[in-house]
């Protein structure tokens, strides 16, 4: 199903990663009933704010991001986001589920859709991905300091996942969280 949607992704940029298994992911992450697709464009001002918060530049092709608000009945229970990170040997497709809390968005779950890394099992294990659960947008995401690497020799891939998760949280916050309110003010 994902590849049927590949054409729709058009410019196949890092930020417009296809969501390959919405049925399974939503059932396991939210036990919810529906989702919709929302595209958001990154304008110059927002790009500067995001880059300032990340401490790094967005890639030239990161001009749009996709969000998937998830609903149980009429109530939104969270948001899923997807991103293509740069692993050691190829792209790593990361899925992040976030929920709103009083202190801002936090990670509910992280999944790897596809990767070409040697430590595939370790990278997808709860021992590694479970570390992100409950992490907030302003927390550090540094492998070797705040987070453990997935496996020996997998530091590049582990950091690629961590960077993708943090980037999605910051972008989410800029569009729907406190970042948005600050930009309005």
């Amino acid at each position, binding site marked *: 199903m994902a590849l*049927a949607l590949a054409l*729709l992704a*058009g*410019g196949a*940029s890092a930020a417009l990663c296809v969501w390959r298994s919405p049925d*399974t992911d939503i059932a396991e992450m939210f036990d919810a009933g529906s989702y*919709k697709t929302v595209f958001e464009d990154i304008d110059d001002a927002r790009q500067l704010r995001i880059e300032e918060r990340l401490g790094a530049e967005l890639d030239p092709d990161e001009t749009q991001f996709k969000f998937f608000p998830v609903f149980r009945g009429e109530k939104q229970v969270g948001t899923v986001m997807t991103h293509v990170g740069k692993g050691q040997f*190829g792209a790593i497709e990361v899925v992040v589920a976030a929920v709103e809390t009083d202190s801002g968005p936090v990670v509910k779950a992280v999944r790897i859709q596809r990767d070409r890394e040697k430590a*595939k099992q370790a990278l997808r294990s709860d021992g590694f991905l479970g570390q992100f659960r409950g992490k907030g947008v302003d927390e550090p995401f540094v492998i070797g300091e705040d987070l453990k690497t997935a496996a020996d020799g997998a530091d590049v891939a582990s950091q690629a996942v961590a960077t993708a998760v943090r980037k999605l949280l910051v972008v989410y916050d800029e569009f729907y969280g406190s970042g948005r309110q600050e930009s309005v003010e």
Partner: protein
Amino acid sequence: MKILSGTLLLAGIAVAAVRVDVNGGLYPRFLVSAKKSSFFLMGAEATVRAQVTSRTRDILTAAVQLTAGSAMQGWTTGFHFGEAYVLFPTGLRLPTIRIGQAVIPFGLMADYDIHSQIVQTSFARSLGLRLDPGIGILGSLGPADYWLWVSNGNGPYVMDNDVDKVITTRIAPTFLLGDAEVTAGLSGLFGSLPHWSLDSLSAMVSGPRDYAAKYRLGLDNTTDWGPLTLRLEGIIGKDSTLSHPLVFGYYGEARYSFAYWIQALGKYDGWHTEAGSARNLGAGVNLRLPDVSMVEFQVLYQIDFLNTGAHDEQDWSIVSQVAVSF
């Protein structure tokens, strides 16, 4: 690039949001062979995508592939240009309905988008087309994706010239096997499709002169094992009637990624009938710019073998391409 977004109103109540985006692709190539050398534009295209959503769910997604130009001619143009379809999701854990012109979901084609690649799977010789107008469903059942597609068998932008239809099904579970992610697909297809003998493959560009009932059974496999990606496909079938001799084909491809930005690949495929065989052997390199995933440089050296009663040929070529998506 967003070109339109808005909200549909019915009796003053917002019922749906609409967003339209346009993306583009550009594929300039250079080819060298024993007979010629040429710069040419493999394709310049745009994809218009419309997303219609209600407050809580996607209602439909429509996509139209618009061709600005291509050096491809005649029948073979329809291998790569003409995707235009609507997807209607019916809900979580339920199938998505697809209507329009789309890739026939047989074998690797269902999962492997070779549109922007130099390497091609064996669809041209095994099926005779890639895009076809029709209706179908696709979705997921646990770890398995599934497809059912009923189409004309005449290629894009053509009315059906008979009452026969082509029915294609595929089911493909994906699972982890150690540090390898494995997708194993089982496909079946039957129906009236364009037919070329091995000796007339070079005339494919002028379109089909006859059609045949084709029966195909395919097994395919995609394995991501660290930096190594393997794609394998085996097809057996019959043309015209079940009493005719078996035809069969195979496709094998290996890609090894040395780093994020560079990978080497090799492929070998063949199609065998009672008249002989047509095979292709290729090796190449794909390179990406370090921070720009929208540009890929590709080079492929390939040798085509044609061995029939009338031909015993071997042609080499080197094709390079810059694939740009924006």
